[in-house]
């Protein structure tokens, strides 16, 4: 594409959804606009698939000076985001066909989309912050779309964490900008390492972005929000928006600029923790979407570990970065596909071809996540392996083992998911419509394509030939355990389910609410009214003496006194 066209395309990526919103508000063109909504991410997709040589545009007049553009990281994330939103859009079009709140849903959907797409293109922190905010707040509208008490509670908790993240990010960006004396994310990342209060800034960033990524222990909004949202919304939430935090880390952390062993260890351990925590919590869930949400938590742990490794060895980062990107891409697509798949399970109990197709469609992304051979998951894991020796924390073999364990866990999780979906209890789910099929199949196709596209890794894996066998054993193990578990518990249905930290938060919020209520201060002091003034005892006294003064004799005495005083003075 020519530079101008690609620049226009670049601007169009976040703006096009907003234009559509504008169109939605006009009654006359509303219908047409509704039809076009699913196609809103197209500019992004085009831009991501046919990238022009580092297209970028500086807009000093926008905000306090904005800079948008697309680099390699941005490209991968843009590809992922655009694909997911496209699929979700197509899916949602038929999913929300006869919902009363359809207009509201689409407005928030488009807002959120614009934010999410723009985020991948923002090269300066203000735009980044802007799109981050736009995305986060718009997502609230999607989460509570159903207006069920569960959704409202999820939304409330989500909103609180979003605001917390906002202010923390704000507090982190200010000193970063001051240190870098520039708003460009590149400069910030470059100078952050030797900024004053660097650790504080990094900590703030990690928390602020970690909330989005569902980093333990700030993850608990995620298993509430993702299930609460309508299926297409939770697909993008879990597939794309979760990656916004990851993107923030990639953009802002001094990756490839500084060696920070401490932070490397922190991120590594955090990643490991999330990987296992997600699996464990997920295994305890009954709701498919909740389970998937926990799986997201566990999956996001792996790129986090990769970033940790990157912090240990800056010179290796250029090789490591694509792996992270690929991981994000792989997980986003697979997870999106699974979420959309949850809505298709009506066919699992209907006999015939449909049933097998649906099953296959569910199996594929599940296997990919589990990292079965010949899937994108396997590629991603293999891409990560050669860098494990960089770890400052544990030695390579142990880490490999742990990763394997995590893979087993993921497999178990996926197995449990399939079992739940298959259970006759879900026969109630109504059959999917064509649009839903369209969106889903689009994602499945993407998953397949990604897995057969190792190109990203050849550069990074440094000629590490992929040993599929490595990828095989965890999956096989996991599968076997699943079957055993299913066989043993199929008589009496497994009664599972778990609470999470959100209970604590609820308690906290209740306390806060009580506090605010307790803060009803006494009413402001009223000034005495004029009517009351005139009855002050002093005034009455004066009034009496005034009466006395009116006596001519008294007055005369006064006069004489004054005269004498004047004479004597």
């Amino acid at each position, binding site marked *: 594409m020519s530079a101008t066209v690609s620049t226009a395309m670049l601007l169009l990526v976040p703006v096009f959804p907003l234009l559509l919103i504008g169109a939605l508000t006009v009654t006359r063109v509303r219908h047409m606009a509704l039809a076009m909504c699913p196609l809103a991410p197209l500019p992004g997709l085009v831009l991501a698939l046919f990238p022009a040589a580092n297209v970028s545009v500086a807009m000093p007049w926008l*905000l306090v000076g904005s800079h948008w553009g697309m680099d390699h990281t941005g490209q991968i994330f843009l590809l992922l985001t655009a694909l997911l939103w496209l699929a979700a859009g197509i899916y949602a079009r038929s999913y929300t066909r006869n919902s009363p709140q359809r207009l509201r849903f689409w407005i928030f959907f488009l807002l959120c989309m614009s934010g999410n797409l723009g985020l991948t293109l923002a090269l300066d922190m203000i735009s980044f912050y802007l799109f981050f905010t736009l995305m986060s707040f718009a997502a609230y509208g999607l989460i509570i779309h159903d207006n069920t008490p569960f959704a409202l509670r999820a939304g409330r908790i989500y909103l609180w964490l979003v605001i917390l993240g906002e202010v923390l990010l704000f507090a982190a960006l200010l000193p970063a900008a001051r240190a870098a004396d520039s708003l460009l994310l590149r400069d910030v990342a470059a100078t952050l390492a030797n900024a004053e209060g660097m650790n504080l800034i990094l900590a703030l960033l990690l928390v602020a972005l970690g909330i989005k990524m569902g980093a333990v222990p700030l993850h608990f909004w995620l298993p509430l929000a993702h299930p609460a949202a309508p299926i297409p919304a939770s697909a993008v939430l879990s597939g794309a928006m979760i990656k916004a935090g990851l993107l923030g880390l990639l953009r802002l952390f001094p990756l490839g600029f500084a060696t920070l062993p401490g932070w490397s260890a922190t991120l590594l351990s955090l990643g490991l923790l999330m990987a296992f925590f997600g699996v464990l919590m997920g295994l305890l869930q009954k709701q498919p979407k909740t389970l998937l949400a926990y799986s997201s938590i566990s999956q996001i742990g792996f790129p986090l570990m990769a970033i940790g490794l990157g912090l240990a060895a800056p010179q290796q980062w250029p090789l490591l970065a694509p792996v992270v990107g690929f991981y994000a891409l792989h997980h986003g697509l697979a997870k999106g596909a699974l979420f959309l798949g949850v809505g298709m399970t009506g066919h699992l109990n209907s006999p015939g071809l449909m049933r097998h197709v649906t099953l296959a469609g569910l199996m594929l992304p599940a296997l990919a996540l589990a990292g079965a051979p010949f899937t994108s998951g396997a590629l991603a894991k293999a891409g990560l392996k050669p860098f494990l020796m960089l770890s400052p924390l544990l030695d390579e073999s142990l880490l490999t083992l742990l990763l394997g364990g995590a893979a087993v866990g993921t497999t178990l999780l996926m197995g449990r998911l399939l079992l739940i979906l298959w259970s006759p209890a879900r026969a109630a789910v109504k059959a999917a419509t064509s649009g839903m099929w369209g969106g889903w199949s689009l994602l499945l196709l993407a998953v397949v394509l990604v897995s057969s596209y190792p190109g990203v890794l050849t550069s990074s894996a440094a000629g590490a030939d992929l040993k599929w066998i490595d990828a095989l054993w965890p999956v096989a193990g996991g599968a076997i355990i699943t079957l055993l578990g299913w066989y043993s518990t199929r008589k009496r249905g497994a009664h599972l389910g778990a609470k999470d930290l959100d209970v604590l938060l609820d308690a906290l919020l209740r306390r806060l609410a009580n506090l605010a209520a307790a803060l009803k201060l006494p009413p402001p002091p009223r000034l005495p009214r004029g009517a009351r003034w005139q009855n002050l005892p002093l005034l009455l006294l004066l009034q009496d003496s005034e009466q006395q003064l009116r006596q001519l004799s008294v007055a005369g005495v006064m006069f004489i006194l004054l005269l004498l005083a004047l004479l004597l003075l």
Partner: protein
Amino acid sequence: MSDLILPAILLSSLLPGLIIFTLPEQQVTLRTALNLAGALFKLMLVALLFVRVAERQYAELRLPLLPDIELVLRADALSLLFLTLSALLWLLTTIYAIGYLEGSPNRSRFFGFFSLCVSATTGIALSGDLVTFVIFYEMLTISTYPLVVHRGTPKALAAGRIYLAYTICGGLVLFFATVWLRSIAGPLDFSPGGVVADLDPALYGSLAIIFALLMLSLGVKAALVPLHIWLPSAMVAPAPVSALLHAVAVVKAGAFGIIRVVHDIYGLDFSAAQNLLFPLALLAAFTIIYGSIRALSQNDLKRRLAFSTVSQVSYILLGVAMATPLGTIGGLVHLVHQGLMKITLFFCAGNLAETLGIHKVDEMDGVGRRMPWTMAAFTVGALGMIGLPPLAGFISKWYLGLGSLAAGQPWIILVLIASTLLNAAYFLPVVHRIWFIEPRQDWPSSSLRGGRETTWALLAPPLMTALLVILLGILAGSVGSALYWVELIAAREYGL
């Protein structure tokens, strides 16, 4: 004699006001025409002046009052900032008020004092020395009282009494401090470096006292805690009045005065050297937090907004008190941004009250369905108050944050964060009610043509201000934005 433009701007609202007083109640058309003509004419003149000042030709006019006292009108960048804001918002508020008070009694009196109020504000913006400032400042006090008590109910009168009590006392202290300062320092022209810098150090003690007195007296109108009591109770006034009060006229007059005193009377260097500013910063910070906390527990919408004003106006003072270029930019730009956001919110509150009779927050469930446009404007204003990008509020907050770091006072960032959280805590629930909760009762559906939610006169002003809030945020970096203008001012202040 092109400097006659200054009195012309004053008269453009003063004369209509005086004429309107004499109009009989029934002459609606003539009165409306006068109002709008005055407002438009003023806006035009201000635009002319704006261009001139942008080319750094400062207009000045001196009129001797007493043998040694002059009335000084001067237009510099700072006054233009305030002047433009007031002129623009006056036009919008007039339109709004015409729609709002349709068919209510005593409109001649109302619009007469309304115009006087605006002329006083204009005078404050244009005053070139402290004496002139005091004159117009007090004129504002007296001309606002009839607006506050306009409804004539005992409640309104009580509020008016409180208002008078506070503002008169404040004005008295201001008056006394000014006389004192005048008797020490001679003429008190506003000049960038300040006028007290080269005084005998023996006087520094009394200078500090005078500074405290000035801050206190101006703090009454700027609603610094604990001098803010009058503001929440003054919200019994009709919506246009509250809008004007909170956005430009009274509250801003106080803030503007503090800016003038700190920048152009004492001078930043002097006040920083005598560290007069740190207490101000502390007080402002406290006010920010306190106002927001009080706002949390208000169920009456306008009361909640009033407390939010208490908190938000102190952003300006905080920025001034930092005495760094970035901080000043943040404070001054908030003068404009807060005005626009708050006036939007009050317009919307007024629409709710006027159209649907809604006054309490918990009556607002699902009102977004009935009045989508008004509520959209409200949402913009509320989110702007929280300081979310790309709205205007964020720009102010960002520069305040940078300024606090530059000033080496990072604690201010904590204040900003806390204020943001609190703002979110008392605005987001309202927004949630508006859009996401099912309406409890069904309101009378619009009787207007095309089912418009309310009359244009009530609808257009909030939409325009909301649009401005968005544009001032998105286009902050472009020429002609408030931020751009404020950066010019700051450059002048600090000789950058």
